[in-house]
């Protein structure tokens, strides 16, 4: 058998005979399984609830009686975003970005939370997700197991006889690395199960395999980092101190610094501030209820020219519906400028945070994991855009019905009598113009492309640390 493999299998035998190693791994496994199950249950329940509410909202819209179409514009519609299949593993930003939205005419509402009780299932610890356990606690486990790989031999004075019988430092370190990498594969089993379960729910095999590979890369970075430290330093207390400091810095301190740096370098206006600015701006744009006289005159002239008439009453269409259509179009243009500006700001800020992945592999894996799981900022923006498209389409659809199916004369005289009012109620069949809303994630290739830079960061970490480890291993002395 290959020398490195002999050393690797001996390392495993040591772990299997060490009650401390067994206890730590068992504890980690129990926590990981418990968190995976609870997260999975929580998200499945929320999704079932959201799908149910979504159908209810659609049914409620469709079952509205005959009405004036503009009343339906204000009646509005709720949409709820169901989680992508891999959110069971990495809910990512979903828990902080809101999953439901009220769609109505003349307004772009923010996403809100559909379930306030979402964090109660884990006793307020819903932030503890399987992804978080892999990103923050699995490295700690690798450090606990791996920190002694070389120093233990040195302390037991078994390093000298090993080297003295012709086994090279590189072979010893390669053996320890192989043992820890095999342990990493073992650690990935729960992720493999989670990822495999997402396949029947429509997840793509390419995404699932990519997710497994990036987590293997990330944990391998920790394996090599741990072994580099234990190979280079002589004393156990120094090794533990350095690795503890690295773990704290790379998984907790740097990500926190990155967020603060990003908010300073690429500030994004708060929700209230943005909405106030938008309201100020759109106040000058008509929403169809308060049409500016000169705008109306312009529209009237162009319609007269188009239809070859001289009076509003002679038009083939209801000018009030047309006014609503044009107003909604203009208003949406203005609102979209603000929405795009805010999204660009958020993307800029996220990019600053992501750049810190060159300094912290934990940030790199967090970005790669969310991108692949479709729970990143890009997918949140994707949801907002999908929602806006739906909102615009149904509002404009209703405005079109207003302009085409309701005569101008009936419309302006609707308050004269009950009979005239009833003439403005159009057939409820028209509400069928509302499209079903089902949140669609981007394709696996696009997600993989989004995760490209963080993956490059992890590969760079891996190559750099591997070079250090090889260098240290060739200088290994008892």
């Amino acid at each position, binding site marked *: *058998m290959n*020398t490195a493999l*002999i*050393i690797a299998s*001996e390392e495993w*035998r*040591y772990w299997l*005979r*060490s009650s401390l190693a067994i206890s730590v791994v068992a504890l980690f496994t129990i926590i990981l399984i418990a968190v995976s199950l609870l997260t999975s249950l929580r998200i499945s329940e929320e999704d079932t609830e959201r799908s149910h509410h979504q159908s209810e909202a659609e049914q409620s819209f469709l079952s509205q009686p005959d009405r004036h179409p503009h009343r339906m514009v204000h009646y509005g519609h709720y949409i709820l975003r169901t989680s992508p299949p891999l959110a069971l593993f990495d809910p990512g930003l979903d828990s902080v970005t809101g999953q439901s939205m009220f769609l109505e005419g003349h307004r772009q509402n923010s996403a809100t939370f559909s379930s306030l009780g979402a964090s109660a299932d884990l006793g307020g610890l819903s932030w503890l997700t399987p992804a978080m356990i892999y990103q923050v606690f699995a490295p700690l486990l690798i450090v606990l197991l791996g920190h002694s790989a070389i120093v233990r031999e040195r302390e*037991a*004075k*078994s*390093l*000298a*006889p*090993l*080297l*003295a*019988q*012709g*086994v*090279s430092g590189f072979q010893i370190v390669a053996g320890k690395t192989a043992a820890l990498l095999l342990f990493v594969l073992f650690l990935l089993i729960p992720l493999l199960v989670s990822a495999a379960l997402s396949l029947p729910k429509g997840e793509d095999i390419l995404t699932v395999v990519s997710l497994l590979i990036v987590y293997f890369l990330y944990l391998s970075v920790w394996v090599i980092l741990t072994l580099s430290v234990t190979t280079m330093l002589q004393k156990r207390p120094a090794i533990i101190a350095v690795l503890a400091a690295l773990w704290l810095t790379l998984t907790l301190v740097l990500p926190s610094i990155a967020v603060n740096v990003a908010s300073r370098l690429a500030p994004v206006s708060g929700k209230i501030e943005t909405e106030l600015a938008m309201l100020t701006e759109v106040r000058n744009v008509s929403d169809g209820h308060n049409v500016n006289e000169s705008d109306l005159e312009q529209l009237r002239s162009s319609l007269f020219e188009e239809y070859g008439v001289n009076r509003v009453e002679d038009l083939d269409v209801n000018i009030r519906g047309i006014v609503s259509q044009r107003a909604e179009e203009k208003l949406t243009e203005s609102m979209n400028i603000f929405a795009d500006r805010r999204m660009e700001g958020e993307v800029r800020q996220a990019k600053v945070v992501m750049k810190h992945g060159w300094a912290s592999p934990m940030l790199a894996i967090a970005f790669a994991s969310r991108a692949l799981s479709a729970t990143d900022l890009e997918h949140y923006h994707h949801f907002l855009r999908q929602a806006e498209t739906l909102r615009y389409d149904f509002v404009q659809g209703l405005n079109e019905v207003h302009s085409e199916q309701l005569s101008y004369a009936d419309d302006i005289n609707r308050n004269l009598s009950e009979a005239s009012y009833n003439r403005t109620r159009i057939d409820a069949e028209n509400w069928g113009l509302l499209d079903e809303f089902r949140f669609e994630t981007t394709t696996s290739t696009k997600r993989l492309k989004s995760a490209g830079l963080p993956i490059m960061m992890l590969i760079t970490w891996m190559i750099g640390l591997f070079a250090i480890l090889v260098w240290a291993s060739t200088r290994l*002395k*008892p």
Partner: protein
Amino acid sequence: MGNSEKLRADQLQIIRSGKEVLSGISFCVDSGEVYALLGGNGAGKSTTLLSFLGFLPPSGGSIYIKGVEVRSNIKAARRAIAYLPESASLYEHLDAYENLRYFLQLAEMPFDKHRIEATLDRVLLASDSRTQRLQNYSKGMRQKVAIALAILRDTEILLLDEPTSGLDPSAIDEFHNLVRDLADSGKTVLMVTHDVYGACQVADRLGLLRAGKLVGEFTAPAGQRIETEAVHRAFSSRHAK
């Protein structure tokens, strides 16, 4: 350099952290010979062994194993050597068989159960303790497993670092008999020790090391042992300085 010469230090100088630990010592050990390097703490005994193993490259002079300079082929040099550190450095979570199997596998040697039993019999390790983990062993028992490994590896050269330190008198006698037996079967043994009596008991030749210098050499007359009194006098007087 004769064909029987297995180990040679030639004007070996070692400087560590700016301090001269070995000051140009020279000696050689022939096949079938036991050479003891005797000296007090800090005399440079273990440093000499580590130099032969290639762990400490010479600052001056040269070291040869079987006529080949160690630096030119460290791996080959190490393959020819079995090294026993001061405290037998085996794995406590393994039993005697598992330890032997592991080290033999790394040396790319077969695990022959009959040969192992015979070797463990030879080093007088009790049968009922062989399947116990080494964490339950005394120092003497561990030393027996380590020497059994050296025998099983069947190397031509044995480097022993304070091999009897911490052993009880009967274990020391057993160990010396075993070393003598190995030398008689053609093995070359270089041992470092501060045990004057033990060194005289087992060594064919003895070098007295003091502050990194080889200050005296004693040879056992044919068929006899080195005279302990003479070595003791030289060791005590020089050691006291």
